């Protein structure tokens, strides 16, 4: 939970944050101002999250990554001359320049060496580029300390994230109808944009539960619902031929099984698919896919392996989309304002260009 100290906004901050205070209000900005965020992994996605959060005016951002900066990375915070240095040290100056009012801290240790005490000092933890086992470990620690946890990645043209907010209370503005005039006289009217604040609570589950959820029962049911509603609202001409219909079904399950497949690849191969090993990595991904589909009892034919052409590296626009949505979710969580995503987000810029929210594991 964000510290409840009375935080004031200076005139300089008011000028800098003017356009966003007008959107989410001063209260939300004050809460941001008190938030200490840990960001693990500074690749393309991490760079986008770092940029977005720093600009928003959090209290501090700790960048944790032990890897070395390489050329041609999607991390735009690394100047050419810093290639070869540790990735967070290479990025520090550009991050700090984005907003001198935020404390930017760097840590070059391997996250696997970090214990419980380390994580307990943060208000939000956001992990990228982690093997799922490590994410599960950290999420469990965060849970123990009531710390909101995010884990996300970008694979080529698409990406995803998972979020665990434990038990999250938030408020939202709902419109109320403006008061009507009396007796037809042209008296003053109320401010037309009247809203009232309503509070809600959402329950989340740990990553372990979500990851181990039986996909065949959960996902198929949900996918079928979505595909069915798709059919109702769209004419068949919009969808094209029936093969496209099958692909739609495949795509629905694809979000999850593609992500699961990529995470499994990472766990088994200790790295992500890389262009240098394109053909053999695609073969490996197909193998993993077949395994997952078999577990889900779905037809092998439905998933086009062409999708595996699109999962290499981290495309800048994919990082921008996923990083934008994820960072905004962190802002929502910290400010306790507006309904957050529960509990997965998937984006694919190669297939249907959609950003979808799925509740998995409940």
């Amino acid at each position, binding site marked *: 939970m964000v510290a409840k100290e*009375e935080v*004031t906004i200076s*005139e300089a901050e*008011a*000028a*800098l944050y003017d*356009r*966003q*205070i007008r*959107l989410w209000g*001063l209260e939300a900005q004050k809460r941001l101002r008190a938030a200490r965020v840990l960001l693990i992994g500074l690749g*393309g996605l991490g760079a986008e999250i770092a*940029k*977005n959060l720093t*600009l*928003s005016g959090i209290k501090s951002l700790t960048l944790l990554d032990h890897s070395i900066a390489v050329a*041609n*990375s999607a991390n*735009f915070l*690394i100047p*050419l001359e810093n290639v070869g240095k540790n990735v967070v040290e290479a990025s520090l100056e*550009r991050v700090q320049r*984005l907003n*001198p009012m935020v404390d930017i801290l760097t840590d070059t240790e391997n996250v696997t060496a970090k214990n419980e005490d380390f994580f307990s000092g943060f208000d939000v933890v956001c992990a990228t580029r982690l093997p799922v086992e490590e994410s599960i470990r950290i999420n469990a620690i965060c849970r123990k300390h009531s710390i909101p946890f995010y884990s996300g990645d970008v694979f080529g043209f698409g990406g995803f994230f998972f979020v665990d907010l434990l038990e999250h209370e938030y408020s939202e503005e709902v*419109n109320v109808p*403006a008061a009507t005039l009396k007796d037809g006289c*042209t*008296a*003053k*009217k109320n*401010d*037309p944009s009247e809203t009232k604040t309503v509070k809600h609570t959402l329950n989340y589950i740990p990553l372990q539960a979500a990851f181990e959820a039986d996909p065949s029962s959960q996902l198929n049911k949900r996918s079928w619902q*979505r595909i069915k509603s798709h059919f109702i*609202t*769209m*004419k068949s001409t919009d969808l094209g031929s029936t093969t496209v219909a099958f692909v739609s079904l495949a795509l629905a399950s694809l979000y999850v099984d593609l992500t699961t497949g990529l995470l499994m690849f990472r766990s088994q191969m200790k790295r992500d698919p890389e*262009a240098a090993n394109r053909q053999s990595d695609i073969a490996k991904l197909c193998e993993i896919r077949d395994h997952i589909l078999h577990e889900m009892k779905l037809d092998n034919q439905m998933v086009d392996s062409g999708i595996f*052409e699109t999962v290499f*590296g*981290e*495309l*800048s*626009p*994919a*990082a*921008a*989309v996923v*990083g934008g*949505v994820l*960072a*905004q979710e962190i802002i929502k969580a910290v400010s306790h304002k*507006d309904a957050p995503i529960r509990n997965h*987000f998937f*984006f694919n810029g190669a297939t*249907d*260009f*959609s*950003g*979808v*929210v799925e509740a998995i594991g409940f």
Partner: protein
Amino acid sequence: MADVNVAPSLLDDSIRKSKILVVGAGGIGCELLKNLVLSGFNDILVIDLDTIDVSNLNRQFLFQKEHVGKSKAVIARESALGFNPNVTIVAKHDSVMNSEYNVTFFKQFTVVMNALDNRAARSHVNRMCLAANVPLIESGTAGYLGQVTAIRKGLSECYDCNPKAGQKSFPGCTIRNTPSEPIHCIVWAKHLFNQLFGEADPDEDVSPDTADPEAAGDAGSVALQNQASEAGNVTRVSTRAWAQQSEYDPSKLFGKFFCDDIKYLLSMDKLWTKRTPPTPLSWDNIPEEISDQQGGLIKDQKVWSPAECVQAMVSSIKILYQRSKELNGEESFLVWDKDDEASMDFVTACSNLRSHVFSIPKKSRFDVKAMAGNIIPAIATTNAVIAGLIVFEAFKILEGKWEECRHVYLNSKPNALNKVIAPSSLDSANPKCYVCSPHPEVTVLLNVSQMTVQSFEDKVLRGALHMISPDVMVDDGKGTVLISSEEGETTENMSKSLSDFNISDGTRLRCEDFHQEYDLNITIIDREHLEENREFTVIADPSQLQPKAAVESSGPQPSTSSSKPAPSTRATESVEIDEDLDVIFQKGCANDDHQQEPSIRKRSISGQADIGSASKKLRLSENDIIEL
């Protein structure tokens, strides 16, 4: 740095060979430049006429504090080169609407990407891309919401295919005589600024309106009107000249606007039979108010007491008067700027004093700034997402996969399909579009004896129809030239009325904008009076024009009819599709009773009305709409 190995090789190749135009280096533009450079694009031209302000820095991340005041395009280019010094980026600190950027200029680009924040520029770039036959990716953001779409001549609808709702404006009598809401007082205060320091516009008079139809009708007010016109010579002095006489003495200004003029309004007693009458203020007796406002606010969020308003009024007038004295030559007027402290203080003070007089709730400087300055709240993340989506659309265009291009919406909540990023198929062009159809046509309703040629050019052709250098001929068999884009050729026409050229009901005008390669036929319909003192109305589809229908379905409803509430702009409710008339633009007055104007007007596609509009209606209701 560019990650060029990840995209399929064909795409890589097209990216490398392409030349991109980015129009705008603001919220979307900064994010977009970063994405383009990182994606391997290496020949980019970015154009923006603006300079950097501190309020940009929460999201336009290519700029830092030390860059405030400098050109956005220039600094954006510098920062973007830091991501890859080997790319070619040309920066133009200029308006894309300049004649230098002609169709030949546009033809050199593989794709044009708009990152704009205003309709006029969007409409203009739309036409240039149509003329040059270059694909255009259009986008926009507001708060948490955003949209991206692709535009290609012949393959999709263009930016102007769907008429946009007109600018909101208020009847003169509401502003000058009977304000009932803070916004009326704010508009009045802005007009006052222009009358005193800026370019005086006859439409922005701040003194009581004796011609108010509500005030007329009995001997008393007729007498008042006679008085007013008798004192003709005195009342004809411009506000500015009058203020000069006292060297902008604040007590004199205060006395006129918040005391004498108010007393005058009070004498127009018919106005006050059903309204709370205004209370004049006295300079010597400014009411004290005890502040009961909460702590912990930003300074600007505190509402000023009348005494504080007077203080701010005095100090801002002093500064503004000094500034206008220092101006000489042609630039003899100040331009109101929300980011200028004195300008903003002046409007806040005067609008709140007026609100006090009329017993209207006062607003903090923070709120006045938003209303007076039309501020749209903006954050980094929305722009980041939209800029990413723009690049994905560009990939499809470069691969020739036009059928995969989409109109993509960024929603604030998951829609019915659980999507926060929701693509929908592109619509085909409006066969009757007033821009992209083979023979564009519009109808304009106006009063031919009252509308001058100058007004027609400024307000109709440029203002509403977004032409930039129109040539107009009257279709009278004689080839009468009404307006020529050549400097000086038709100057003597400007002050004449349209009727002086025998333009009457049903006359057709042939308009051409050579620069935009745009021809438009206009049919004039002579109307002595339009609702609510509007000066003109532009109708997209003349074949659907019915005299009654024009009144009923054109935008905000007149106060005399018992009308339904206008459709909400919030798209979680379903958006009503106006299948009657496509009103492009109305200048003049919107009725107070209808605060929410419909933000989307959809045409009825003849023959496909049922399917087309139904599915579109559903699609619209699934997504949050902001109007680009």
